[in-house]
C-alpha cells in the first residue's frame, strides 16, 4: 500500500517538477525585468507601484507553486487572508499615528 502510495505521488511529482522549472524561469526573467524597469525614469509613484506589482507577481509564484499554496487546504487560506489584512493595516500604523500627532500639535 505504501509502495502504491509512493508511486501515485511519483506521478504527481513529475508534473510538479515541470511546473517548478517553469516558475524558476519566470522568476529569473521577472528579476531581470525588475532591475530593467528601475532605469525607466518613471515618476516616483509609478516606479513604486510598478516595482511592488512585479514583486507581488514573483511572490505569488513562490507562494502558489513552491509553497504549494495554490492547492492548499482551506484553513491555510483563512490564516493567510487574516494575516494579509493585518499586514496591510500594520504597514500604515506608524504613518497614521504620525499624521494624528501632527494634527494634534
Amino acid at each position: 500500500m505504501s509502495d502504491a502510495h509512493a508511486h501515485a505521488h511519483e506521478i504527481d511529482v513529475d508534473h510538479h517538477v515541470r511546473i517548478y522549472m517553469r516558475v524558476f524561469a519566470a522568476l529569473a526573467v521577472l528579476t531581470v525585468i525588475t532591475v530593467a524597469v528601475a532605469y525607466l525614469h518613471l515618476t516616483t509613484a509609478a516606479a513604486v507601484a510598478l516595482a511592488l506589482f512585479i514583486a507581488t507577481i514573483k511572490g505569488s509564484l513562490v507562494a502558489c507553486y513552491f509553497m504549494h499554496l495554490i492547492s492548499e487546504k482551506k484553513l491555510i487560506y483563512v490564516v493567510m487572508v487574516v494575516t494579509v489584512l493585518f499586514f496591510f493595516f500594520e504597514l500604515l500604523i506608524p504613518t497614521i499615528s504620525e499624521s494624528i500627532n501632527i494634527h494634534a500639535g
Partner: protein
Amino acid sequence: MSAAAIPYTVEPRPDTGLNNVKIGIWLFLASEVMLFGALFAGYILLRVGDPGFGHGSEELSIPMAFVNTLVLITSSVTMVMAWASCMRRDLGKFKLYMGLTVALGGCFMVIKYFEYTAKFHHGIFPSTSTFMAIYFTLTGLHAAHVLAGMIVNGYFWLPGAKMWETNWQQFTNRVETSGLFWHFVDLVWIFLFPVLYLLPVPYAHP
C-alpha cells in the same frame, strides 16, 4: 506510535486535512509576516518623513543584490527539488539538492558579508542615516533568517537524514516544512530587493 507521541505528524487531521507540522509552520510564517511587516512599516514612515532619505541605487550595490536575488530564487528551486526527491524516495538526489540549498544560502551570506564590510570600510554604519539604519535592520534580520534556515536545512541534510530510514513520511513532511520557511525567506528578499535597492526618491540630493 506510543501514547506519548504527538499525533498527526504524519497522517493529516480528519477535520482540517492538514498535519500538525503544516498548520504550525503556516502559523509561524504568519507571525513572521507581521515581524517583517513592522520593519517595512518603519521603512514607509522613515521614507515619508525624511526629505534626505537615501536613494538605494546611489548608496547600495545593485549588481550584488541582483546576484543575491538569483541565488535565493535558485535555492528555492533546489529546496523544492529536495522535497520532490523525498517524494520520489531518491535519497541520493535529496542529499544533492539539500546540499545545494545550504550552499546557495551560504553564497548569499558571503555576498552579504562583502556588501556589509564594503560599507563599514567606507565608514558607513546603521547610525549614518535613517536609510542605512533601516537598510541594515531589514537585511540584517533577513540574513539572520537565512542563517537559521541554513542550520535547519543542514540538520536535515546530514544528521537528521537518519529519519529517512525510520519514518520516511514524517521526514518528508519535515523537509517540506523547512522548505516552506526557506521559500518565505526568499519571498521576503523578493520584496526587500526592489524596495531597498531600486525605489527612487523624489527629492533632489545635495
